[in-house]
């Protein structure tokens, strides 16, 4: 099936039904993120990937979990919130789709299902658009992500110059594409291969990282790090969160909010001990988690090569240079 780029906007306007929120990548007040599509928004499909990742749709920065209160005779009543809604994200990139694979692994597998995430995940349909060209910071190919392929997307639009190659990949995708009948035509087109200037080889990096606990490379790297939370909050696969509550006298709401392993308070224990007191431990932990720990636990790298942290780090700390340096060792 083929979808011409001119038909894209009419298709989008058609999709914004009442019962479903459609999110598209756009500029909101100078920040590019996935925002609700309504009359005024101008979707920007040219930009490779948005500054704010789409993880916010599945795992919002602040999410109300449940409300509790004490009734007259002193017993607690607890009511769960379910804020998940039918959502369609249109224009998500393959690297972000791959990050959703990681998030699914974390939130849905290994014997514990996070129902807040699960509800949101069920109600999310993803229409992925492949990349014809890459930004200078993109290196998803090196992290075994095909810029034109997203196996877990419901509908895959492969960018073929001025048309999209529409592939429905899941039953939900078929239903979706069926509704697009007036905008698509038959035929298959060869997708444009996307050249990436930035490439790293992950060859043996995961194993080498095992033995590098006290390696001086961490010291040189962590000295320049500011320990702010930018990279963790912009990273599509970072999933750490903290639970806190809003209290009133006898009732309150417990909510979940993003947290970053870069903050010292993240590992601060009640007695005042901090297992990761200095920047060095925290920076090492973050990169080890991205490149090694996740691989060992789930068999896939937690870095999808979207390049957001490389682009937005205030001190240009670069995960790709770390990978090159590790590869070059020994």
């Amino acid at each position, binding site marked *: 099936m083929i979808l011409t780029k001119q038909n894209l906007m009419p298709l989008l306007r058609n999709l914004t039904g009442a019962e479903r929120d459609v999110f598209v990548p756009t500029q909101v007040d100078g920040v590019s993120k996935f925002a609700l599509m309504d009359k005024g928004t101008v979707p920007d499909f040219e930009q490779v990937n948005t500054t704010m990742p789409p993880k916010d749709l599945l795992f919002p920065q602040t999410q109300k979990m449940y409300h509790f209160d004490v009734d007259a005779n002193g017993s607690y009543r607890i009511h769960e919130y379910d804020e998940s809604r039918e959502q369609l994200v249109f224009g998500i990139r393959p690297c972000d789709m791959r990050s959703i694979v990681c998030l699914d692994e974390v939130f849905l597998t290994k014997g514990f299902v996070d129902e807040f995430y699960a509800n949101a995940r069920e109600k999310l349909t993803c229409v992925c658009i492949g990349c014809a060209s890459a930004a200078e910071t993109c290196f998803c190919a090196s992290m075994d992500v095909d810029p034109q392929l997203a196996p877990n997307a419901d509908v895959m639009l492969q960018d073929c110059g001025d048309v999209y190659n529409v592939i429905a990949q899941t039953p939900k995708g078929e239903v979706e594409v069926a509704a697009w009948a007036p905008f698509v035509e038959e035929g298959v087109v060869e997708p444009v291969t996307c050249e990436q200037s930035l490439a790293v080889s992950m060859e043996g990096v995961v194993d080498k990282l095992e033995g590098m606990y006290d390696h001086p490379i961490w010291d040189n790297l962590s000295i320049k790090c500011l320990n702010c939370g930018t990279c963790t909050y912009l990273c599509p696969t970072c999933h750490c969160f903290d639970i806190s509550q809003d*209290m*009133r*006298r*006898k009732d309150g709401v417990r909510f979940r909010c993003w947290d970053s392993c870069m903050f010292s308070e993240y590992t601060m224990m009640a007695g*005042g001990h*901090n297992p990761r*007191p*200095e920047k060095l431990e925290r920076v090492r932990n973050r990169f080890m988690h991205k490149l090694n720990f996740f691989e060992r636990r789930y068999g896939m790298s937690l870095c999808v090569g979207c390049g957001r942290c490389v682009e937005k780090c205030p001190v240009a700390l670069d995960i790709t240079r770390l990978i090159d340096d590790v590869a070059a060792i020994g």
Partner: protein
Amino acid sequence: MSRIGVFICYCGSNIAGTVDVEAVAEMARTLPDVVHVETNKYTCSDPGQEGVRNAIISHEIDRVVVAACSPRMHEPTWRKLLADTPVNPYMLEVANIREQCSWVHKDREVATAKAMDLVKMAVAKVARLQPLHSTEIPVHKKALVIGGGIAGMQTALDIADAGFKVTIVERETSLGGKMVMLDKTFPTMDCSACICTPKMSEVGNHPNITVKSYSEVENVSGYIGNFEVTIREKAKYIDYNLCTGCGACETKCPQKVVNDFEQGMSERTAIYKMFPQAVPAKPVIDAAHCRKLAQGKCGVCAKVCPTGAINYEDEDKLTTETYGAVVFATGYKLIDWKPLYPEYGGGAYPDVITGLQFERLVNASGPTEGHILRPSDNSEPKDVVIIKCVGSRDPNKGKAYCSRACCMYSAKHAHQYLDKVPDGRCYVFYMDVRTPGKGYDEFYMNTLHDGAQYIRGRVSKIYQEGGKLICKGEDTLTSQQVTVEADMVVLETAMVPADGIDELAAKFTVGRDADSWLVEAHAKLRPVETNTAGIYLAGTCQGPKDIPDSVCQAGAAASKVIGLLNKDVLQSNPQISHVNEAICQGDGACVGICPYGAIQIVQKTFRENSRKVTRPVAQVNPGLCQGCGACTVTCRAGAMDLLGYTNESIMREVDALCQW
């Protein structure tokens, strides 16, 4: 889990009149951690307090909220009540539902809602309070008096009579200060020597008083009860144990020096006693002018001295002692009028003299043995002009304030002059005559009766013409120009603080006002105390005043010191700032803020992440901190917190008001 007890008072009908106390009690029972709520007709009465005490015991309450009258009224009462229960007296919060609720609102329903809010705030705050204990500060039973004038001596005597050791530090070579320079003292005209010198000898011989003359305070550290003061006893070059004060050396010394004590109107020798009745009655060698010490020649005094007391190799002696209290009695000096008033000759005319110079002229032990002779040609002046408020009440040329004592002593000068020169004429130029004391105005009327001519107006110019000093002025009562040809002019100049008061006060962190007078804690209610605990003021160092007021203040300061030294140990105020050393950066932003100098930065060693780290942290001195909390806001990290009003308790108090 804390167990909070809430006690709501009816206060007869004062509270119950417009606040439904039972409804408030009902609401209080639903508050978190509240395990017992009790209402009471009169909680402050004995039965009321008994009820509270029993409730605390029976319900094992560990935090108490009293909703009644203002904490300013009965907080001490509740604290005493808790003192003999297992509850710490500071685990208490008072909700003011009388003065700020039932008395100021008429509508019962609105007042009850507000009372409920105030109780909620109190419960939220009390839940976060910690038990506080006041620390004990030792008090050294010794006092230090700086300045040996009449105020310093009176203070020292009163303290010593109460049985405490006192040290007087006097910069000059003898006690006495300015008073001993005077001839007569108003209003009773008894001669200053007759009432001052007995005091000096009494001080000199008092077993509890050690006099350190010719000495100055070098540096100070410590705080109330524990002032470590280093005193520099300047070299006297005479061994006071050997010296008998016979005076042989003074007669033989060849070097003549201008005598400051005589206001420069006569000379003294390099080895000198300030005046005959000096205490200690032993001379001092003036190192700057002594030929032996300055140029290495002479040495006559050593040869002449019968007991060999002269020691040219003498050095300054530094001694450090700990004092419980310090009293400033540093006195005043007269303003240097010469640069300020060129129109009065600016010092060019020798016959234009100051009040103190006149005192020396009229004094029997003065340079002219009491005969009033004008300095230029030692002739007896027949016409004398006295000009008042020279430098006082003159904001643009001198000082803005009134120096208080000059009205009286100018009348005294006029009276003394007319007494000693029967055919003399005395004109007094004045703006106002202020004689507020007991017998003061009668004294002034007496001087008028003696024939002193009081002319209301200021002298605008004095110039010399044919041996006469022409004083041109205006008589504002008759609004005519007045010209007086005078033989001698006496200027009653303004009082200003003694030299070096700024450096000395800075050493003790005592405040000074714009004119460098020392600042008392409260002008009306605490006139002899300062904002630095343990430091008191007496006499003119606090502001211009006459001898009766100075002595009165000296007694007051002494009573404060005695009150302090009577205690073996001081209870410090427990609601003071507390440093969380884990967070403290040691940047010292709080040090400059503290009006009491209670915070200092010290180096401390901590074990952090299994490493020993030495770093600067702030340290609060419980003796000085008054608990104002200004430092807690400058501390960005919140390391400095105020016990009793911690950041957390105030934040939860705000939350309780807004959300409960």
